[in-house]
């Protein structure tokens, strides 16, 4: 039987290889291109750039009538 340490080492190498694979995939896939667009990917038309989304403490502005 293979000693467990070697099995673990094999898995470790596999994991390291998958990390290299991931960065290779990301580069090929264009994940590092158009970085500005990447940063904006969490916004959409419903929650656009320029619109804060969490305003519990906000004073002064009156709350719209609850539906």
């Amino acid at each position: 039987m293979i000693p467990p340490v070697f099995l673990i080492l094999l898995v470790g190498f596999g994991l390291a290889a998958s990390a290299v694979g991931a960065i290779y995939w990301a580069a090929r896939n264009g994940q590092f291109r158009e970085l500005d667009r990447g940063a904006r990917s969490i916004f959409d038309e419903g929650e656009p750039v320029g619109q804060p989304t969490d305003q519990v403490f906000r004073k002064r502005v009156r709350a719209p009538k609850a539906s």
Partner: protein
Amino acid sequence: MSATLQTTVAKPSASTEAEGEVVQRVEVDASCRIPVLFFFSSAICWLLLGSLFGFLASWKMHNPGILDDWSWLTWGRVRVAHLNMVAYGWASQAGIGTGLWLMSRLCRAPLRAPGVTVVAGIFWNIGVTVGIVGILAGHSQSIEWLEFPAYATPLLFVAYALIGIWAVLMFVNRRPGHVYVSQWYLLAAFLWFPWLYGTANVLMQAFPLKGVTYGAVNWWYAHNVLGLWFTPIGLASAYYMIPKVIGRPVHSYYLSALGFWTLALFYSWNGMHHLIGGPFPIWLITASVVASFMMLIPVLTVAINHHMTMRGHFGLLASSPTLRFTVFGAMVYTLVSLQGVTMAIPVWNKITHFTHYTVGHAHLGMYGFFTMTMFGAMYYIVPRLVGCEWRSPLMIKWHFWLSAYGIIFMVASLSLGGFLQGSYLLDKDYTFKQIVEGTLGFLQLRSVSGIALACAHLVFAFHFVLMLLRLGRKGGEATYFNSPETGA
């Protein structure tokens, strides 16, 4: 990049032309509702229990006689139970809940078969409970961060595997588009944890190694579980919450990618700096100290990025609980990481190692950074899941200030006390008894700050229960915050 910030509050009517995205968000939230709320609820239960045990352990440091008649509540067991409750009961489950929701939202895909994750969560909780009872019964393993007795481990591993597989499947089934930096962090964390946990358990329990390698694996695990499990989840949350709340994209997306990949590259080398001065091959320690310094790259990229994103928008800290907790956490992340780098310097390590200073550092990281970030994430996520808004800004403020002052005082007293303790321990003119007595004042101060933290948790838990019972403020759609008429 620098979009002008509207000061108007989001109105549901803005979504007419964006029906698709809103429906998508609603679907994502609906699919995550039960599992994420389950993980958050059980995390908060463990947080309360963990606070109690932490307080007990802290109190025993200056009043050793208290509750000492029963072996189950002796200091050696209570402290370990506290650590495992907050690490695996609270922090991991808060992280899993946040991670599942964020992953689902960023993949723009609902969580499939959410029942499986709930079952996994139930098993995880059974595992933690069995482990804690085992520790209190005296079956603790003398492996730091892996004290759970061997019979609890398989349960935890299988439960985790289900959750991890679900998170990875979600990523595989994501809607096409850009992979956001938070997704990288989350995917990595969900893959790193089983590797760390599995390897450490195989090499330390199933087929134990002998000699120095045993210590090496222990610290490889104990340090990486912080840096490759908790840290990426905390950062994933901060990288989403900060831009999202202030409505402005991350300052430099290039830096965020650099930060992620350098963390992945350097972090796993760091653990051996816990063995400085120990009977251990010097080259391993040296490599680890060098890697600790290399951590300056990912830490500073994150710090610069978050600061520059926030610049000009610090005023929003006054209006958003999520932002307040998350930014506090992000700032502490920079601080605690830089402190960690200095603690890897051998001359400084010689003073601080094996003193309360290290304990202060651990609390700064796990509480000041990770826990605060998770609170921030919960303040954002829970209203979207239950469909009503947090009831009382006043309670959130109490939660924040008690937590913030509590952790600041705790770390300050432990750091100062630990530094003095370490300095005097190196001085032959002082007896051990004198030094121990000298730390008592600092330890009492730490207990007091622990009370503040426990109160903060009680306030938060009460508020969370109100939300679960849907007793929050109603009005508008769940995805938008309406403004209360009084800020309190």
